């Protein structure tokens, strides 16, 4: 490892990766008009499932295919990640089913699944806690990794990080450069109009809720198969689901801004340990741990209230418009509401 600053920044990218993935999954779902509030529970449940599946796959590969543990690790991680995605999609489908087909409150079902997911994961996963299992290791991306600074920060990461970059770009491409994306956004903004144009609103909502849920499941796998190095009880990723949900709002449902939001939160978290090691700064450690939550309130305050608008008014006029375009954003108009065929 080279310069401490660069490796700290690279560490922030590593730690932010599951947040980026989870927030991107939720962005897809919410853009289609459904709130998957269960993120915190979904992530924990899929992290557990991903680890257990990967662990079992590795055992099977070792005993029946005669591979060594390191040889089996790569394939096992991929199988585990798929398992986690299936679990994430199933949880999301439950929300889609209860809100679209059974007309229940999305928030209520999502909240129940938040608690249930965590408890279920702890109950089912007790025997797999703290055992060494397959992990994915960082691999340098050829050429890109050699770029000074940028390469060291972004391209000497694990596969999950590379997937997260592709995911952000892919989501942006889907939203704003494809016909499917146009339909997706129409379903979340003005479902009646979309329906009138022949778009199958509820079918698309099912689809994108499941897709978003699968991506959230992948975030769970990124925790247990990479960033948090295995499965523990209590789950080491608890609470991050809520942060991911807040990042979606902070990011204004736009993939690139969501990405920046995730890096910002991860950076703030690492600040707590940096300050602790800095001589001369006397701040209570416990209070430092509260920083991400305070930031969560402040950022929501900025994007939700008129504060940002008032701030913009102070700036010179030519700057206002482009900045407003970047900073302001409203939720998908039909977010959380039901669509019923009249």
């Amino acid at each position, binding site marked *: 490892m080279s310069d401490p600053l660069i490796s700290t920044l690279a560490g922030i990218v590593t730690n932010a990766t599951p947040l980026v993935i989870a927030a991107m999954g939720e962005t897809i779902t919410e853009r289609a008009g459904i709130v998957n*509030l269960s993120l915190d529970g979904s992530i924990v449940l899929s992290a557990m499932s991903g680890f257990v599946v990967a662990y079992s796959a590795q055992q099977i590969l070792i005993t029946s295919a005669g591979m060594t543990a390191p040889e089996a690790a790569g394939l096992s991680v991929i199988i585990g990640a798929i398992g986690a995605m299936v679990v994430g999609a199933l949880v999301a489908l439950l929300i889609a089913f209860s809100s679209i*087909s059974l*007309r229940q409150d999305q928030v*209520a079902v999502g909240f129940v699944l938040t608690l249930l997911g965590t*408890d*279920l994961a702890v*109950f089912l996963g007790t025997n797999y806690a703290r055992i060494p299992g397959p992990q994915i290791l960082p691999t340098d991306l050829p050429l890109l990794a050699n770029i000074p600074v940028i390469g060291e920060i972004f391209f000497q990461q694990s596969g999950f990080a590379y997937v997260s970059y592709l995911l952000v770009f892919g989501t942006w491409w889907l939203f704003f450069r494809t016909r499917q994306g146009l339909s997706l956004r129409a379903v979340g903004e003005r479902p009646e109009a979309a329906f009138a144009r022949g778009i199958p609103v509820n079918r698309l909502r099912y689809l994108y809720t499941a897709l978003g849920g699968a991506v959230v499941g992948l975030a769970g796998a990124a925790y247990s198969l990479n960033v948090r190095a295995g499965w523990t009880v209590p789950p080491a990723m608890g609470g991050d689901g809520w942060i991911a949900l807040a990042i979606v709002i902070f990011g204004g449902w736009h993939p690139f801004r969501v990405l920046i939001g995730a890096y910002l939160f991860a950076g703030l978290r690492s600040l707590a340990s940096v300050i602790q090691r800095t001589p001369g700064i006397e701040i209570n450690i416990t209070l430092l741990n*509260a920083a991400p939550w305070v930031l969560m*309130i402040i950022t929501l305050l900025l994007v939700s209230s*008129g504060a940002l608008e008032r701030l913009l008014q102070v700036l010179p006029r030519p700057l206002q418009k482009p900045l407003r375009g970047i900073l302001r954003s409203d939720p998908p108009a039909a977010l959380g509401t039901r669509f019923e065929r009249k």
Partner: protein
Amino acid sequence: MNPQRLMTRFGKALIPVAISLLVTALLVSLAGVNPLNAATELLRGSFRDLGAFANVVNFWIPLTFASIGLIITFTAGLWNIGVDGQITIGAIFASAVALSWDLPAPLLIAAQIVAAMVGGGLWGALVGILKARLGVNEIFGGVALNQIANLATLYMITGPWQPPEGGSVRSSPPFPPEALLPRLSDDFRISPLMLIGVVVALIVVYLALRGTRWGLQLKATGKNPRSALLMGVPTNRTVITAFIVCGMLAGVAGAFRALVVFQSLRPLVSGGIGFLAILVALLAENRVLLVPFITFVFSALLGGSAQLKVALRLDVALVGVVQGILVLTALLFKGASERFQATSSQPSRTATRPEVAHE
């Protein structure tokens, strides 16, 4: 309500219970334990003797306080996930009085409970103001304030209320004897004062929601804030007061956790009771009088969970799973039966909510 409707309603409630029991039994078998064994151990843990039963009551009291508080915010259409933090801040405020004021016992106890209500109310007001005046979604405001409240507890324990021998995070110094609530007897360690308090709170909230102007404003805001505003309901004020009153009740729950359960301030003092209370409120569907029964079942499960762990080595998370599945199946079943009714006969949506007629 005629007997036949009562029966169908009872039957409706039974199906989700049966489904969740079945699923739980399956999970327990998966863990290699006979479900019948688990059930007996659970009951034994809750009702074995007066001590065990007192333990159940000591879960029931704070859970009921928090749940009836939540009925208020739910009636106003608000997701007060911050209730757990309101419990925690209530506990901190009560502890502050217990640890620093020198008063005779009755006055000190009164001051502690008032302080807890002030603390919980303030924390609730914060969510309410963020929501009503600044547009911050109450779910996220609540989640963040919950964590901040937990960290505040830890800060008070490791900082200002450090025990004399220093550096520890286990608890504040134990409260002086004057600060503790009197118990019914040494065998049955429950607080009659708090028991009366719960009953009073139940009645007051029931009456307030049913027969006062404020109750009607809460309902109108919950139904449709926009049309409520048009009808002249001060929705912002209603939202904030709903959070404050809920926070005050949650604060009492927090005082109970600190003063009765731990007799000192502990990290994670709420024990997640706020989240459980949300499940209770979802099951009760805004009917205050159902709350004490649901909370009793939940408390019996909680009281027995320790025994499950002790005797059968089943993780306490199992109880959370049971409760979660129960609420989930109840929600799904409600949806399915409404759906079924809607297709078989024209729905009479107002029939299930007779209170609308009063407006």
